[in-house]
Every structure is written in structure tokens, then in C-alpha cells.
């Protein structure tokens, strides 16, 4: 069913129960439940984490959107808010945390560093954005994003959840979901997908 048809499903509701019955789709009620209670992982990396705390505090208060239940354990979290610079030393831990989160799970890259390395991108121990490691759903620009920008990004995530369908989402498909391979700390950070290329380059040299 298309989103725009959800409020007029085409079924006649008898007059005497009109006040107490409404008809909707499973997707819509399921998504409504999920989008209104996204529990973020309590996970601060750098400067952006301070703005995340300010967003949680009284002036901006993102509990208005059902997101105030920050979970320190990845097992209980729905959304990873990557708030800050992802360094190579931290990269294996982030991937492990992501793998430990139960589906459905979302990743929001907050700020320039998490989106693409930011001002520290050229550095030797900074990963150029968390999307080199794990899939990202929403990117929020800013250095750091103001609380308003963060809330806007989180509303974008809610809009994304609204468009999903139980039939199509990857975590309800047949078969196991593969875990993201954990990068290795070698002489530099080594992604497992790069290992053949590095070996070939060594053989040629």
C-alpha cells in the first residue's frame, strides 16, 4: 500500500464503531511504534558528544521525539549516533559495537568527522568517515552540528523509518545477516576487503 493511501484504506467502517476503530496497515503502525521510541547508544566520541548531551538536556530536549532513553549497552540500542572523529585505534571497537546491536539498527553520522573525516581527515590515524566501516543512514553536517541540526537529522531518520516496509527490510529476509568484518590494527588500519590488494602489491614490489 502506498503511503498516501494509509489513512483512507478503502474499507467502510460502520457508524457505531467509528470512534473506536481505525484501519491502517501493519507497516504504518509498526513504523509508528519504532520511530517514536528510538533508543540511541550512549556513545560519545569527541566534541560532537558534548552537543549531543546538550541536545538531551533541558533546553533542546530530544526526549520530545522519544529518544531520551540512551542505552550504554549496544544490545539494547536501536541507533548508533556516531558523535565525533573515528580514529583507527577506535575503529575495531566501533565495528564490534555495531555488530552487537540487534536489528533493526540505524547509524547516524553526526558532524564533519563522522561523515567524512572533517578537519582531521588528512591525519595518519583518522578514518575518513564512519561509512568506511559501517553503513550510515543519515549524515548531519556541522562542526559540531548545533542541537537544532542534530534534531533535524534525527527527524530525517524518523522519516526514513516511515518509508520502510516489513516485507522489504533486510533484517526480515531469509538467511543470516552477515556481520561487518572487523578491521585489523596492523602497521596501519587494514580493512579485510583490502588484504588481497595489499598482498598483490607486496608481491609485485
Amino acid at each position: 500500500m502506498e503511503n498516501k493511501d494509509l489513512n483512507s484504506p478503502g474499507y467502510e467502517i460502520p457508524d457505531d464503531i467509528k470512534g473506536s476503530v481505525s484501519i491502517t496497515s501493519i507497516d504504518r503502525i509498526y513504523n509508528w511504534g519504532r520511530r517514536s521510541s528510538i533508543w540511541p547508544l550512549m556513545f560519545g566520541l569527541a566534541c560532537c558528544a558534548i552537543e549531543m548531551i546538550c541536545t538531551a538536556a533541558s533546553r533542546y530536549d530530544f526526549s520530545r521525539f522519544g529518544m531520551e532513553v540512551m542505552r550504554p549497552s549496544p544490545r539494547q540500542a536501536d541507533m548508533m549516533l556516531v558523535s565525533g572523529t573515528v580514529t583507527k585505534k577506535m575503529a575495531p571497537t566501533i565495528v564490534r559495537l555495531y555488530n552487537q546491536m540487534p536489528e533493526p539498527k540505524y547509524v547516524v553520522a553526526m558532524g564533519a568527522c563522522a561523515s567524512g573525516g572533517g578537519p582531521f581527515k588528512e591525519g595518519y590515524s583518522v578514518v575518513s568517515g564512519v561509512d568506511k566501516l559501517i553503513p550510515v543512514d543519515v549524515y548531519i553536517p556541522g562542526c559540531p552540528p548545533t542541537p537544532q541540526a542534530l534534531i533535524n537529522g534525527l527527524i530525517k531518520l524518523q522519516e526514513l523509518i516511515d518509508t520502510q516496509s516489513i516485507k522489504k527490510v533486510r533484517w526480515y529476509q531469509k538467511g543470516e545477516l552477515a556481520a561487518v568484518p572487523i578491521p585489523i590494527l596492523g602497521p596501519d588500519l587494514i580493512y579485510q576487503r583490502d588484504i588481497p590488494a595489499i598482498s598483490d602489491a607486496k608481491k609485485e614490489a
Partner: protein
Amino acid sequence: MVTPAQAPTLDLVTRFPEGVVADEREGYEGYLVAADKLVEVATALRDEFGFDYLSSVSGVDYIAEEMLEVVYHAYKTIGGPGLVFKVQVARKKAEVPSLMDVYPGVDFQEREAWDLMGINFLGHPDLRRILLWEGFEGHPLRKDWKEAYYEADVKPFKSRWPEGNFFRSEEKATYQANVQYPDKFDPEKWVPEGEDALYGALAKYEDVDNTGLKTDHITINLGPQHPSTHGVFRIATILDGETIVSLKPVMGYLHRNHEKIGERNTYLQNMPFTDRLDYLSSMSNNFGYALAVEKLMNIEVPERAEYIRVIMAEMTRVQNHLFAIGMFLNDIGAFFTPSLYAIEERELVLDIFEIVSGSRMMCNYFRFGGLARDLPAGSLEMIKGLAFERLPRRVDEMDRFLSDNEILRSRCVGQGVLSAEDAIKYAAAGPMLRASGVPYDIRRADPYSIYDRFDFDVAVRYNGDIYDRYIIRMDEIRQSLRIIQQAVEQIPEGPIQTGKPQYQVRVPAGEAYGRVEGPKGELGFYVVSDGKPNPYRYHVRAPSFINLTAFGPMCTGLKIADVVAVLGSIDIVLGETDR
């Protein structure tokens, strides 16, 4: 007002005719000490000359002269100017005796110099990498080390300016292009070195109790993902039951190559990067860096700019301490309610920062010889309203509600004690040093800017426990408000910048160490210039980093639950710890 004690005439060369010479390079100061005399000279400095506080250790790579230099900045805790002494060693055989026995506060700083610069400190008991991981290839702050995205030695890069053909650095330097893999490295057989070195450094592993029963001690890791570590910080401990036998902080999870990037940037380009060091107190970081470069350039700052600088630096201290108190109570178990009150007040200070600089947190407000812009109309009235009315009342209110709380007191009083001797020995700085009974505040001990004009007390507490480190922050907020109150009354009209504002400053060759009393302690910037548009060496003496040296000794013998309280009372920010 107490005047700082005058330094007695000091002649290190007469005391050590062999092995010590004055540093006579143009623009340099201090003494050059022969490596084999270093421990002897340092001991004499501490015991005979009274330089009991070794604040900073920086390595410099003079690649043209084929030598590495270690620069030590020593001070007296009774106040007065400092003393610089240096050791020069050949690049190929970079070995310097460790000063661990004389000044244990150099522990982490020597490890950092080993990690990033490859200087081997002989006799250091635990010389491991500290910011990078074991197995990393090379020492990145050496001038001939090139990172994966290396493009040119200095900015602005030719490709971006003036032609402006920008591109993504991934496209130019594919990921592996510049990575230096060692010869024997085989990615398919590589086993990460893991944590053996770390766990090996923790003391005592096995024990036999009085009945002859053999018990293993437990190793516990806290972090790097933990809500009480104030960011990505990790603590490795060995426990005997619930008691801590040995504890080592593990850091570097937020190592963002501040210094390597800083040596590539032009001088002014570094200003926004300093914001991101201690991201709670960006104005203070700007202040320290501006002082260091102004010392090199030898320029004065106009009166009005000095006053605005002081107001902003003290506002920073107020909001930093508010946040620190809130987060500390979080750690103690008063989950988020005190923080909410503290953050509410902090937002008001951030409003002022946003009005004057355009950004809430990353202010980038200071310039060499002045400020980026003047105070906008009406902002001084806002500051007055905060400093005279709102903040004093709210601080008193927080004090009344929190400080006598039964749970807070029973968890904090007498716990995690750091004695005055230990605080000096471990080079603790700021509130941590003063809570241990050492009245050392750079604003008073070695005044910079216009701090000698204001009437304020150096906040001191004498027990050195967690409670004193908490309550001293309340005291300091009150003193900062006093300074702000005087400054907004006295502030003159006038220019806010010496000369014309310029993007590219000319900095003569030489070295300078600018230090300010940041909210976390002594924040120092060691800058070496070779006359070019970029700093040759740019080192940060980060108080959060060095304050952690005392963390292990403070926690030994406590219960595991107290570690979080001790860490909260140190008040670290990981951006500064790891840089």
C-alpha cells in the same frame, strides 16, 4: 596582593662547568645539557635551585642538523618564571636518560615522545606506545614520516590555492599509497600484537593468601565504550577481590594528529584546531596559542582586547566547571538531574560565545595581536547580567543542594587522596594541584595578559581528596565571576587588534612557550619557528593528559566503584588527552 617570589640569580653553567652550556641560537633560550649529565642536572635543579615542578617535555626533530632535541620546561611551585633545558641527541641513535626517578610526572610525556618521535628514554620502566597502538609502523612526528594522505610539506597546498582545483584526497592518494609497510609484513598472516604489553605492565598477577590458597587476580577493562569514562578512554586494572592492585589508563582512541596537522598548517590555520583540543573550553585554548605566537612575534595586544580576552577566558572556566560538576555528579550516581541544572546555566554562557564569535563551542575568536571582532552591541549587558545576577545565585543554589549531600560526602570525603608532594611530583595541574593544598595558579604565579590587575583569590583546598577536587571548582567559579565583574566595569573603549588583521603572519625564527591557566590546569603551547609561514614544531602541554599520570597511584587500594569517582574528579576531556 601577593607578588610572585623572585627567581634567585641562577647560573647553571657555573654549577656544571662540564656538560651544560647556554643555548645561544638566535631566538632560543635556556641551557643545553649533555645527555649523560641530564639526571644529575635535573636532580640539582629540583633540590638546589627549587625547580620542583617539571611541567612539559617536548621532542623536536631538527632533521637538517640530524638531531632530535628534548625540551624540558621546569617551574617553581612558589611562583616565578621558568627554566628551559634541552638535550640534543643524534637522530640515528636517539637515546636520552629517563627523568622518571627525578620527576615522575614525565611518565606519559616520555611515552608520548617515544611513540610519536621515536626518542628512546633509557630507564623508563614502561616505555610503550601511548597514543597509537602497538604494531604501528614508524614514529609519525618525525619530519621524514609521511602519512597515507600526504600531499605536500606545508599548506596552502598548490592544488587548492590559488588554482583551486580541489579533489578528494582519496582520489589522489589511494588508501595504501603512502602507508609504509615493513618488509616482513604479510597481511594474511598478521596477528595483531594485542594487549600483552599492557597487561604485562600491570603489577602482580598471582597471590597466595595466609591459608596457602593460590588466588588469581582478575583483570578488568573499563571502556573505551563506557558511559563513565567521559569519552573514549579505557582503564585496565587488576583487582584483588574488589580492591584495585594496579591500574593503567589506556588512551589514544581519539588521537587526531593535532601536532602533525599543526606543523603543516599556517600559524593562523591552527587557531580553529586549538578549539578542538579541549572542546569544552575553546576560548582558553585560543588564549594559550595566541600567547605563544605573540611571544615569538613580539607584539602587544590593545587594552580592550586584553579585557575581552580575560572575560572570555573566565567565562570559559565558569562553564567548564559547571559541566565538570554536573558530569561528576553523574558519575557519583545522581544521574543527569544536577547535570541538567548545570547545563542550563552553561547554555547561557554559550549564548554569549555565540553572540561574540558566531559559534557555540568552537569559537575561533582570538587572533595574533587581538581578536577576530569586537563585542557586538548589547553583549556586555548580557555578560553583566550573568556575572552579577544570575550565575552567582545559581552557583550558591547548586552548592546548597549538592555539597552537603550525605551520599556525595560519604563517597568523596577522604577517598582518592593525592598529597601535595605527590601532586607536584606527578606534575598535576589546575584544580587538581590546588585541591591538594598547593596554591599554584599561573594567573598569580607567573601572570600573563592583564591578570595582575584583578583582585581575586587563588582557590585552595587542603585535603586532596575527591570532595576537595569537587568543591574547589565551586570556589573557582566564584573567583572567576569576581574577575569578570571587575573586568566588565573597567573595560575601556578602543581598538581590538594591533595593526591590520592579516591571514598570513610573519613569525621570526625562534622558540616560545605560552602557557595559560586553563580550566583543567596549565595549558602550554611550545612553538618553534624557522621563519617560514608554518610552525616548525607545535607541541601542546595538555593538562588533561598529564593530570592522568597521578590517576593510577591515586586509585591503587581503592574499591573498583571509586575509580569512576576519581576519574570524574580529575575532569578530563579526551580531545585534549589524546590530541
